[in-house]
């Protein structure tokens, strides 16, 4: 099989994997989350009568999308956890993994198809929800975000879903039973989504940054650096970097893009390496 055929085969397998996820009952839970958070958030935030406790002036559709990204962070990443926390461990427990690993397919290709399948299963409904959200923003504000802004938002969203897919499948390949799968899956998501602020404040306090004022420039700069070590932080920084110049992060854009590349490369490579030596 030549390289092109192999890539086509991986895409077909990824689609098979995604279809399995689409048909799973968990997808219902994910769709409910996405509709509630992304679609609902887009409608509510673009309503001119609504007020958000944020220092950001949200006058443009992209700024609304930026705020909606908080809901994406919560719902789509949780969706990856929902679909992927037992992506490998369940197959290992049921014995299906032994059948898959004994097939004449390169393990890298098989791992990539699992990864892409999970990514597609979350990215497609997220993008559809965001597209519905954009329609609602247009209804409320009378204008769409520019094509560039829309693509930029989707690329960043695709990236964070990819990072979480890598992390979840890596954790799932390490877990030997359902309990550890749940613990690792939810634990990692909670660490980045709910506990990260606490980690940032704790580290800031330890190195002597004033944490009594979380809006101080010194703390902001410090938290931006710490955010580079979290997928959620990098996602937010990426989207912020496309806001108007007043609201942009202090960090140079290339730092943020390097962090984004590293987040794509390191967990992805670790997962592929882990899969290569996986035993049923």
């Amino acid at each position, binding site marked *: 099989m030549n390289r092109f055929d192999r890539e086509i085969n991986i895409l077909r397998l990824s689609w098979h994997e995604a279809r399995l996820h689409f048909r799973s009952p968990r997808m219902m839970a994910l769709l409910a989350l996405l509709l509630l958070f992304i679609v609902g958030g887009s409608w509510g935030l673009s309503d001119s009568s609504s007020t958000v406790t944020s220092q950001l002036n949200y006058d443009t559709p992209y700024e609304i999308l930026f705020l909606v990204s908080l809901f994406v962070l919560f719902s789509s990443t949780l969706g990856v956890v929902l679909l992927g926390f037992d992506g490998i461990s369940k197959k290992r427990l049921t014995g299906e993994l032994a*059948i898959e690993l004994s097939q004449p397919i390169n393990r890298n290709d098989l791992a990539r198809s699992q990864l892409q399948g999970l990514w597609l299963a979350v990215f497609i409904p997220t993008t559809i929800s965001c597209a519905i959200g954009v329609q609602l923003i247009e209804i409320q504000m009378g204008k769409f975000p520019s094509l560039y802004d829309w693509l930029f938002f989707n690329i960043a969203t695709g990236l964070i879903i990819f990072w979480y897919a890598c992390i979840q499948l890596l954790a799932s390949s390490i877990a030997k039973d359902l309990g550890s799968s749940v613990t690792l899956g939810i634990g990692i998501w909670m660490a980045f989504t709910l506990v990260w602020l606490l980690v940032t404040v704790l580290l800031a306090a330890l190195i002597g940054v004033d944490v009594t004022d979380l809006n101080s420039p010194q703390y902001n700069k410090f938290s931006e650096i710490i955010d580079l070590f979290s997928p959620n932080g990098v996602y937010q920084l990426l989207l912020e970097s496309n806001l108007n110049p007043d609201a942009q992060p202090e960090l140079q854009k290339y730092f943020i893009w390097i962090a984004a590349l590293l987040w794509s490369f390191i967990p992805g490579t670790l997962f592929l390496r882990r899969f290569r030596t996986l035993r049923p």
Partner: protein
Amino acid sequence: MQKGEPALSLSGVAYRYQLTNWLTPWKKKWGAGIHDVDLMVESGSILGLIGPNGSGKTTLLHTIAGLHGRHKGTIKFLGQDRRKLGWESAQNHIGLMPERVNWSGTTTPHEILNRLITMRGLHESPKNLLKIVGMSKRMYTPLDNMSQGMKQRLTLACALLGNPKILLLDEPLNGLDPVAQAAFRKLLRDLANRGTTVIVSSHNLNEMELFVDSLAILHRGQMVASGSISEVQNILGCQPQLVVAGNGWCPPSSGSFGRGIVLEKCEPWPGEEWRISLHKNGSWSSKQRHNILDSIEGSGGKICLLQMVQPTLEDMLSAATGETADTIGLEVGDDSLIPLKKLGVREDE
């Protein structure tokens, strides 16, 4: 490949599981595995792989199937070293049916097979495969609604994908009803007749006796004996027994019936007054049998039954392991390798 030529040969194959502890990941400990396994399986034959729990049957099958990346020794498929064949070419020869795959979810057998067909880059129809295993009417039944027997058939269908030359079946009869077991045996024989080499691991020794051509006995990761059934019987010293039942005069336990003939058991038996089992090395001649009859009848005994009883797989397994149901009970051996042939191999090797 002609029938009778070696389809699979193993030479000095060894694999041991590495045990790791989360708290001390730098400390690596070697666990159970297989040690120095030599085996040759002829093309178009059915090999029965037997051994007690934890003897390494599944590990051996997984090693042959390439699931344990690094192993010692050489595995040859159809005369070619699997390492030189390359991963994909080697795997094309193999069909693995793991033990008790617990298929679950809302997906269907058709979808499962379609996915595996894509993985193999084939253009087969799942329908044909499901027909072979008697599942064509359940093609679109969700996995959650399938019985264990149906799941077992689906697993077999997965193993048959791509028409592999070597089929590795781990406890394939589990969960199958008696009729399905008979059909399964017939299917394996048909496959073997068409040149497929089949290795079956099973605890169901009575069933195995019905369809295997050769045997391999594993114990504590070691290959104790392998070859045709008669060869294994010779290696293990399991010879046919002559069972004689009768009434009247009963031969004494210390009785002698000729050179090399040992009276193993003398017990009362319902319907007759007594029953004895006679054992000897080598085959029984008709003269020897007549001598025994004459000896008993000459002493006033009356023979009701004279029967040659072949050793069962259970007898061979007991002889190979030195353990019987009476002595071992339910106890499973520990996971340390106790090299039977190569004493002196260190645990950390």
